[in-house]
């Protein structure tokens, strides 16, 4: 009998179906890898197993007992532990306190720390994990790898049956990854069922017993490691229906507008150089965590660079105001938090970044603001009752148009867009793509980060791929295929 058994699990977020009738099981003493592109539904599935998210349909049982949904405590008491990429610990407490903090005490008044016992037990648990961290060390001062071990030790303390590790290796060094894998194999030998989410195929083939591939929330297949190879897995992940779609005629490429040279941000990405010409759309692909959004934000001056130069038409960029006055605009990934002010009107949202153009010194001009807003609303066909409507009341697609449109009031040279069509309807998607092309065709430049494979292949003139904070390669439009992108993004040699 499998330890984890998911039957017919479905989950919607709003109208988007993130999991569609997925059957998934993990046996005792098995390392089961979940594989899929960004947004395939892997994280949602493991959150359901861990009791963090409740499915809309389907059942999950742990060791034959039905899991009450949405209860972390219930899942924990059944022996399920989820280790996040960024460990969820208490930085102010010591390692020992972190491990024991949720220990249920016996009779009231008998809850005194049995310090010596807890200390030595913590040491044992950590030793079992090959970690030499002191139980008295303050968690705030530990590396991510050490914190993961503390997190696992806390899970081991409670009779561990199912260990879920969600993309744990992204911020680890090779030797730390080796140690993590050794720990996982040890636990597996002790009968723990392990679910591992990863992207690096060599790693996955090394560690797994079985591999389940998800695509667009659907189960593609579950294979044994012995039957799997890298090429086959990539094909399964991206699907066979490779859609070439509509592509733009070759651009009339002009002068260089944006030059980025040897740009680094310590700990995020390093040594990135690129240039973008008039009339060009440059796509940036890669896995989540590769440093793409951080790169865009650094180019726009949101984040401080640690090395390198950014040049737009001769101006050196080191702050947001530099970027804006040089004619750059950034449409961020999270429009609800950074792209828009949801609780204010469409009018104010469009006016906010353009007050320098419409105001006389510090005095605003409602007339000019209204004219600008109305022209953007009609140009981008934003569906609003009037420009006073709150941005938060609009649909995703219309919100994204406002987030984009606020920059089009200005005479921009370079538009930076991060996941421009995430969570928007298909109609808006097509129109936003058309808008980006139109913008580029008018002699401007676009840099587009996207995790949407089809978008990445269709919209840009060329694609840069980032992996682990570095540029892993460049693909011209002719070279760009899903397979080529995934190879560069996951580091598998051709």
């Amino acid at each position, binding site marked *: 009998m499998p330890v984890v058994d998911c039957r017919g699990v479905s989950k919607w977020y709003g109208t988007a179906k993130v999991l569609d009738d997925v059957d998934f099981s993990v046996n005792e003493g098995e390392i089961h890898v979940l594989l899929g592109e960004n947004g395939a539904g892997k994280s949602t599935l493991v959150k359901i197993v861990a009791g*963090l998210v409740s499915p809309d349909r389907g059942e999950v049982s742990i060791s034959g007992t039905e899991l009450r949904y949405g209860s*972390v*405590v219930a899942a*924990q008491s059944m022996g399920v532990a989820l280790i996040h990429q960024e460990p*969820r*610990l*208490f*930085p*102010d*407490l*010591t390692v020992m*306190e972190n491990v*024991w*903090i*949720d*220990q249920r*005490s016996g009779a009231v008044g008998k*809850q*005194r*720390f049995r310090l010596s016992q807890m200390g030595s037990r913590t040491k044992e648990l950590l030793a079992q994990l090959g970690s*030499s*961290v*002191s139980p*008295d*060390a*303050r968690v*705030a*001062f*530990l*590396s*991510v790898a*050490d914190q993961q071990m503390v997190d696992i030790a*806390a899970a081991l303390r409670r009779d561990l049956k199912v260990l879920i590790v969600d993309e744990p290796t992204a*911020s680890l*060094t*090779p030797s730390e990854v080796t140690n993590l894998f050794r720990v996982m194999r040890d636990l597996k030998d002790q009968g723990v069922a392990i679910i591992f989410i990863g992207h690096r195929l060599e790693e996955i083939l090394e560690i797994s017993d079985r591999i389940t591939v998800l695509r667009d929330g659907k189960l593609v297949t579950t294979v044994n490691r012995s039957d799997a190879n890298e090429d086959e897995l990539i094909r399964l992940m991206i699907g066979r229906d490779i859609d070439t779609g509509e592509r733009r005629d070759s651009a009339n490429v002009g002068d260089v507008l944006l030059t980025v040279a040897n740009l680094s941000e*310590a*700990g*995020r990405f*390093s040594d990135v150089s690129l240039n973008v010409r008039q009339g060009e759309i440059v796509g940036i692909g890669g896995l989540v965590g590769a440093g793409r959004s951080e790169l865009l934000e650094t180019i726009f001056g949101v984040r401080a660079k640690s090395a390198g130069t950014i040049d737009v038409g001769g101006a050196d960029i080191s702050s947001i105001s530099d970027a804006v006055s040089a004619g750059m605009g950034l449409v961020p990934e999270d429009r609800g938090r950074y792209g828009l002010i949801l609780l204010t009107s469409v009018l104010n949202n469009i006016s906010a970044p353009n007050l320098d153009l419409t105001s006389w010194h510090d005095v605003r001009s409602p007339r000019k603001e209204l004219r600008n807003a109305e022209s953007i609303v009609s140009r981008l066909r934003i569906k609003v009752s009037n420009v006073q409507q709150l941005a938060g009341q609009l649909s995703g697609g219309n919100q994204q148009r406002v987030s984009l449109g606020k920059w089009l009031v200005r005479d921009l040279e370079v538009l930076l867009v991060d996941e421009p069509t995430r969570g928007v309807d298909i109609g808006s998607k097509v129109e936003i793509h058309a808008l980006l092309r139109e913008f580029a065709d008018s002699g401007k430049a676009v840099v587009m980060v996207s995790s949407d494979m089809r978008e990445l292949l269709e919209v840009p003139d060329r694609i840069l791929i980032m992996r*682990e*904070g*570095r540029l892993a390669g460049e693909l011209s439009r002719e070279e760009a295929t899903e397979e080529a992108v995934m190879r560069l993004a996951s580091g598998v040699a051709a």
Partner: protein
Amino acid sequence: MSDVKGAGRLRQIARLREAGIAAVIIVLIVVFGVLNPRFLNPDNLGSIVLSVGILMILAIGQMLVIITRNIDLSVGSVLGLSAMVMGMVGRDFPQLPIALLIVVAMVVGGLAGAVNGVLVALFKIPAIIATLGTLAIFRGLTFLVSNNVQVDPEDISVEMKNLAARGLLGVPWLVIFALIVVALAWWFTKRTMTGKRLYAIGSNPDAARMRGLNVTGLTFGVFVVMGALAGLGGAMYVARFATVNPADAGLGFELAVISAVVIGGTNIFGGSGTVLGTVLGTILVGILANGLTVVGVSGFWQRFASGAIILLAIVADSFVRKRIETRQSRETVVRSP
């Protein structure tokens, strides 16, 4: 490994800060003593000890609240309300033993704390807003229950007044109560799981929920304890001043209490703070208030000074924390493969 070093480093910083406060206390004593020798005479030192005692009882409660990433601004009003209720009960039922009167004050305070606890823990109202509201409400209640009539010294029993004058081996009961509170708090924060959970809640509330800690219950509980301690402080206030005026019992006390806690090194954003630090912070605040009066600084400048000191403590604290964090992030920069 560097980890063991990390553990030591933070403790070192805490020790350093505590030694720093102790040094400032000594400097203040010397300076005030030189400026006005009367500062060092036994009567004045005794008066400092009594005001520090009352402040300490409240500061310990406030420290627990702040550790959970909350704050209680209503402490002065709760002190006033419980002192008033206790004073009136003592006046109207002179036969009641003083132990019972102290219990009355603590129950009134505990109930007031429970109101704060319900607002913050259950209704999830930010503590700074909820307790700002109850600060006014409890002060208003003090006027209502007393009909704006003060409890006079002749209505307060000699036994009650003696709590601030007599005790064991010459140590007044007021001070003994404060020391008991300190000892219990030390034991609670160092030796119990529940104590550690308060730190956990303040350190990472999301993780606390995900680890299944009873965040609501513990937050509620900590506000009740704060209220009960403010009630005890109210009883001690009655003993010391032998009068309760609804307009000024505990008025503005929150500033002194929060200053003491923050100067003592409790992180205003929760997750850390020590009993020893709070004790030292309280002594510093108490000495400063008394010393400034004794050397003849006007009341206005005293307020200015207490405000400036709390700001200074917070700025120094955040400066040190930033230094640690940047050093830390430099050490854990993703080691590129």
